[in-house]
C-alpha cells in the first residue's frame, strides 16, 4: 500500500504547477519593505519582502536586476511586479521579481531637490560657467543608447540638416543602476581630446522619472560640469527636467531638439554665405564709391582745374623777384659808382706825380745819405789801409833786402841752411833790386 505515499518532489512539482497555472499569481503587484537583502556574485538578488505582519521570499534574476536604476538595500520600501511560483527543492513559494522601484515618488523628488540645491550652491549651474555651442561643428559626439528612438532622431536630424557633419556615437547605458557610471565613463572618453569633438549631445528618449534617473545622479552632473567639450543635454521630453539639464551648457527639450541646436541647416549656411557675399559686395561698392568721391574732389580742386592759375601765381612771384633783384642790382651799382667816384676824386689818382715827387725826394735823400756814408767808409778804409800798409812794410821779408840782405831760394823754397843744398844745385838769389841765378860750388857747414 505504498502507493498512497507521494514523493516530496512530486508534490512540490504539483504545487508549482498550481502556482504557475493560476492567472492571478502570474502577475502580482506587491508593496513591501526589503530585508535580508543578498546580492549574489552571479548578479541575482535574493531578499525578503515584508509588511507589518507577513513576509515572502523574493528573487530577482540578473536579467531583470540590470534594469534597476537604484541599489536596493534592507529597510527600503519598494513596489515590485512579478509572478509567484514554487521552488520545489526547498518547498517554498516565492515571488520572482521582474520589476522593482522605490516606493513613493516623493522620495525621488526630495532627492532631486536636495541635489539640485547642493549643486546650485556650488555654482555648477551658473550661466558664466556655460560654454558656447559652436555654430558650425565639424564633428558631433553623442552619448546615448545605441538603439532606440533617441539616437535615431539625433542622427537623422543631423544628417537632414547638415550632412557634412560627422557623428561619433559613444554608446552608454541610459537606464538602470549601471547607467550613471557608464554615462560618466563615456563623457570622459568623449572629452579626452582623442576625437576632436566640437560639441557633445548627452541624453536619451522619454521615460518615467525612474527611467531618466541616471541623469539626476551627482556623478553625471559633475562629469558634465568638468568636461571641456560643450555639452547639450537632451533627456526625455520637453516637460522633463533633470539635473543634467541644469548643469549642461545648453538644454534641449528632446533629442531631436539637441541635434537642431548642435548643427545648422545647409540652407542657413547658404543664406549666411549669401549674406556675406552681399555684405562684401556692398562694402566694396561703398569703398570704391567713397574712393571715387575723394578722387573727384581732389581732381576738381581749383588748382588742378586751372593749372594756369598756378602759373600766374608763379608769374607774379617771378615779377616780384625780378623787381627785388633789379632793386638790388641798381643799389649795388650806385654803391659801386659812389666808391668809384671816390677813387676818381682821390688826390693821389688825380696827382700821380705827387706820389713820384715824394718817392723822388726820398730817393735823393737816400742817395745823399748813401754817398755820405760811402765816403765815410772809404776815408776810414783808406786810413786803415795806410796803417796796415806801413805795418806790412815793417813785417815784409823783402823789406829786409832794403838793408842789403839777399834771399836764397831753390825751387821757390827759401833756403835757410847750407845743408839743404848740394854742389851744383841751381839757386836763385833775390836782392833789393833784381835777382841772380847761381850754381853752388862749395858748401860750408
Amino acid at each position: 500500500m505504498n502507493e498512497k505515499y507521494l514523493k516530496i518532489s512530486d508534490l512540490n512539482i504539483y504545487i508549482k504547477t498550481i502556482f504557475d497555472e493560476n492567472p492571478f499569481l502570474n502577475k502580482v503587484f506587491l508593496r513591501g519593505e526589503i530585508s535580508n537583502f543578498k546580492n549574489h556574485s552571479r548578479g541575482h538578488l535574493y531578499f525578503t519582502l515584508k509588511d507589518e505582519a507577513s513576509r515572502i521570499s523574493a528573487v530577482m534574476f540578473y536579467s531583470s536586476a540590470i534594469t534597476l536604476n537604484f541599489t536596493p538595500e534592507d529597510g527600503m520600501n519598494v513596489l515590485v511586479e512579478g509572478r509567484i511560483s514554487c521552488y520545489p527543492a526547498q518547498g517554498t513559494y516565492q515571488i520572482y521579481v521582474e520589476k522593482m522601484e522605490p516606493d513613493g515618488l516623493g522620495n525621488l523628488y526630495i532627492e532631486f531637490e536636495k541635489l539640485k540645491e547642493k549643486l546650485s550652491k556650488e555654482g555648477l549651474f551658473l550661466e558664466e560657467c556655460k560654454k558656447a555651442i559652436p555654430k558650425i561643428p565639424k564633428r558631433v559626439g553623442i552619448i546615448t543608447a545605441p538603439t532606440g528612438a533617441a539616437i535615431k532622431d539625433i542622427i537623422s536630424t543631423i544628417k537632414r540638416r547638415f550632412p557634412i557633419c560627422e557623428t561619433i556615437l559613444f554608446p552608454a547605458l541610459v537606464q538602470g543602476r549601471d547607467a550613471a557610471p557608464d554615462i560618466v565613463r563615456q563623457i570622459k572618453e568623449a572629452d579626452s581630446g582623442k576625437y576632436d569633438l566640437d560639441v557633445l549631445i548627452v541624453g536619451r528618449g522619454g521615460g518615467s522619472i525612474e527611467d531618466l534617473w541616471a541623469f539626476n545622479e551627482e556623478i553625471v552632473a559633475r562629469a558634465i560640469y568638468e568636461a571641456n567639450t560643450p555639452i547639450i543635454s537632451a533627456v526625455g521630453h520637453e516637460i522633463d527636467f533633470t539635473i543634467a539639464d541644469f548643469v549642461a551648457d545648453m538644454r534641449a527639450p528632446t533629442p531631436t531638439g539637441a541635434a537642431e541646436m548642435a548643427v545648422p541647416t545647409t540652407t542657413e549656411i547658404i543664406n549666411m554665405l549669401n549674406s556675406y557675399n552681399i555684405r562684401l559686395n556692398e562694402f566694396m561698392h561703398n569703398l570704391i564709391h567713397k574712393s571715387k568721391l575723394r578722387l573727384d574732389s581732389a581732381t576738381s580742386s581749383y588748382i588742378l582745374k586751372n593749372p594756369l592759375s598756378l602759373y600766374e601765381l608763379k608769374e607774379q612771384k617771378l615779377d616780384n623777384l625780378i623787381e627785388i633783384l633789379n632793386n638790388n642790382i641798381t643799389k649795388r651799382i650806385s654803391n659801386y659808382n659812389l666808391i668809384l667816384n671816390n677813387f676818381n676824386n682821390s688826390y693821389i689818382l688825380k696827382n700821380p706825380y705827387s706820389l713820384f715827387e715824394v718817392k723822388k725826394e726820398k730817393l735823393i735823400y737816400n742817395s745823399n745819405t748813401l754817398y755820405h756814408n760811402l765816403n765815410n767808409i772809404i776815408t776810414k778804409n783808406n786810413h786803415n789801409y795806410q796803417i796796415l800798409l806801413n805795418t806790412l812794410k815793417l813785417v815784409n821779408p823783402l823789406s829786409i833786402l832794403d838793408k842789403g840782405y839777399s834771399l836764397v831760394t831753390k825751387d821757390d823754397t827759401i833756403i835757410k841752411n847750407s845743408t839743404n843744398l848740394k854742389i851744383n844745385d841751381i839757386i836763385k838769389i833775390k836782392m833789393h833790386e833784381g835777382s841772380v841765378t847761381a850754381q853752388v860750388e862749395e858748401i860750408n857747414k
Partner: protein
Amino acid sequence: MEKSFEDALKELEVIVKELESGNVELDAAIDKYTEAMKLAKYCNEKLKTATDKVNKILTDNKELVDFEISE
C-alpha cells in the same frame, strides 16, 4: 592639406568683419575681397558637393567603426 569647410567659413567671417571695421586701405581691401570671394565660393561648392559623412560608433575596444541606425 585641403582647408576644412569650417575653417574656410571662419576665415570668411573674419575677413568680412575686418573689412566692415573700416580700417582697411583700398588696395588691401581689394585683396581681401578677392580672398573672401574665393572662400565663399569654396564653401558653397563644399556644401553642394558634400556627401553624407559616415556615422561612427566607439566600440568596447575603443575602435571607431561605421554605425548604421537600425530601423
